[in-house]
């Protein structure tokens, strides 16, 4: 408890000129509202400094870093490359599998390892399951932000089933440390394939139900359509990725366009926003893209489950990881978009520098652009539509 006194600063607001933290002076009819870090709809610890004129947003200044956990510093301090994985897990804790996969892919490219086919299949299954789970969190919390609590719980119930599959496989529910450089920590448990197939069968009708309950509800549509429109060229300029980019009408998916793993063997299609309810690139598009991606993921999982080959999942795991001097930037498609790892090796067993290019960080940076002129209530939905996970925004 020592030092708690110094934490308190003055609680009295000074009269006079009020400035935003980026140094802009307010006009008289503007007012600053602080949303977060503790606010029901900032999904953790984002803080939005909002300048409003009435209810219309003049400017949004996101403040991040409340969850800056020094991933990059940790990566540099690990004694071997493998140990980075638990920390990579904790970056995007909603989609830990994808984070691990990205790291593993980067390291494998650096080490020039070929991983067995079974490993790739299992990774695809896991990554897609994780994608569903992650999107479920996204659309569920989206529902809460729109004021509908029930869809969230339905989504979480389905997610729970996926987590059961994960726990069966690797023993953890959220942070798996499952995908290793060159392989996996465990092989699939024997009942897994049946259970996963069962899940797919169970899950398809639930997607429709969810859509009926939330996605196509007129109130919801009216709330989200034409809100937070992000045009194509801005999306690219801001390097948005994932559903955010696709919703803006860019047909772009790293699984197809910068191929890794075995995605080319399955039949599926990247989903793009079409502006059915409003403009291309609005918040509703982002939502529907996620919903449709979930369906696609179920397709991929079913195909992968059918075609999974036999093999050893640990065959390619190097005993000791010591890459040559060099560097690599490898990117994969996480649920939120392009997760890229820039890894620099100095030839020793510990990484010299690991930089994670996290999708939500980049996607979030466009938030001020798309929320100007919207209303306070819209901002909540726009932010939810960006689908941030603070762990990877702040790293």
């Amino acid at each position, binding site marked *: 408890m020592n030092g708690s006194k110094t934490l308190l600063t003055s*609680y009295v*607001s000074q009269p006079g000129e009020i400035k935003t933290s980026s140094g802009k002076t307010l006009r008289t009819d503007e*007012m600053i*509202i*602080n949303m977060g870090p503790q*606010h*029901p*709809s900032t999904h953790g610890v984002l803080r939005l400094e909002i300048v409003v004129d009435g*209810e219309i947003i003049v400017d949004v200044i996101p403040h991040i870093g409340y969850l800056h956990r020094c991933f990059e510093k940790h990566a540099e301090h690990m004694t071997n490359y493998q140990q980075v994985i638990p920390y990579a897990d904790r970056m995007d804790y909603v989609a830990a599998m994808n984070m691990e996969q990205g790291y593993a892919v980067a390291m494998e490219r650096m080490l020039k390892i070929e991983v067995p086919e079974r490993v790739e299949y299992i990774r695809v299954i896991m990554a897609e399951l994780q994608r569903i789970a992650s999107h479920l969190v996204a659309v569920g919390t989206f*529902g*809460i*932000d*729109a*004021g*509908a*609590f*029930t869809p969230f*719980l*339905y989504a979480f*119930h389905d997610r729970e089933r996926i987590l059961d599959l994960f726990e069966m496989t690797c023993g953890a529910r959220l942070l798996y440390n499952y995908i290793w450089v060159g392989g996996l920590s465990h092989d699939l448990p024997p009942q897994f394939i049946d259970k996963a197939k069962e899940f797919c069968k169970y899950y398809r009708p639930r997607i429709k139900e969810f859509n009926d*309950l*939330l996605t196509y*509800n007129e*109130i*919801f549509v*009216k*709330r989200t359509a034409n809100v937070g429109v992000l045009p194509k060229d801005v999306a690219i300029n801001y390097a948005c990725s994932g559903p955010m980019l696709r919703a803006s009408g860019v047909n772009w998916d790293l699984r197809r366009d910068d191929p890794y793993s075995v995605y080319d063997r399955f039949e599926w299609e990247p989903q793009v926003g079409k502006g059915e309810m409003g403009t291309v690139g609005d918040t509703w598009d982002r939502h529907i893209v996620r919903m449709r991606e979930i369906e696609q993921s179920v397709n991929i999982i079913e195909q992968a489950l059918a075609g999974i080959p036999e093999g050893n999942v640990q065959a390619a795991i190097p005993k000791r990881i010591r890459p040559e001097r060099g560097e690599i930037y490898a990117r994969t498609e996480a649920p939120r978009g392009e997760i890229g790892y820039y890894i620099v090796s100095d030839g020793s067993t510990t990484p010299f520098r690991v930089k994670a290019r996290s999708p939500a960080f980049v996607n979030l940076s466009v938030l001020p652009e798309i929320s100007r002129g919207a*209303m*306070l*209530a*819209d901002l*909540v939905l726009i932010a939810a539509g960006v689908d941030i996970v603070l762990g990877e925004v702040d790293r």
Partner: protein
Amino acid sequence: MEALENLGVWGSILIAVVWSALPIVFILLYALVTLYAEMKIAAHIQDRLAYMRTGWHGTLQPFADILKLLQKEDTISSAADRKLFRLAPYVVFMGTYGAFSAIPFSSIYIGSNIDLGVFFIVAVSSLVVVGILMGGWASNNKWSIFGAMRSAAQMVSYEIPTALAILIAVMITGSLNLQDVTKFQEGGIHNWVVFGGPLPLTQKLLLIPFTLVTFIILFIASLAEVNRTPFDLPEAESELVQGFNTEYSGMRFAMFYLAEYANMFLVSAVTVALFLGGWTSPFGSFLSGPVWGLFWFIGKCLLLVFLQIWIRWTLPRLRVDQLMYTSWKVLTPFLFVCIFGVGLILVL
């Protein structure tokens, strides 16, 4: 009773006091039940259980909640305006409770049988608006003020559709006194105003579409009056934290909470008394009588409250501009059409 009557003025006052304290008891009981029921219904809609560990199936939970709130420290933020901050719960609760005086719970119980009935209810409810504005402003918290202003603007805009819908019922029944209105509908479900009231058949048939629409509109407007989903913007958690009561804690907050739930009942009660036959039995004289009347009345109200809860856990919420759109551009014009329609039908 008679002995008391003999005591003169003071006796009658005593009777009146007891008489008017009854709804408090009722509100408390009802709030406990509804608090519990709301969570339970929500839970079952969401495939879960809610309250299971306090008493049998968590039935004691509301008691625990209230007892807990009693022990909660009462914080008044240093930036707040202390006087108004303290005053606000009184105004809100008085507004709510005053309205209860004109609710006919049964053929023998009505707090105050004034002629003005619903008109009085509409009027006295506006105290709630002022109370909320007071609380929100006194909190001196951005979320509170936002919530309060929104709340006031919303309640105020939806008061027009509410009043107009009530007016249509009054046009049919020809009385403002809810007791009279209820008596007017006696004789079974077909005599309820929502089904045209006890009028000659042709008139009745012509009226039914109008009354149905009016009933639905009144229900929607009453949702908005009590800030329930999809009109819960003032308390929209995902936007405004807790709305106007963000800074309130402990018992003061509990009073707002109680008033909110009491208001839920109130709007249902008005709707029931005007459109659903009040305390009359749906089966004519079968199962009627003062006690049954109480049962029917509360039963019907709780049904509407259930409907409110059900809607709450289904729908997302509107945005402010859509809220105003609904009130002014959908509900009000429809009601004007209904007024002309009903007026013509009844006059001709």
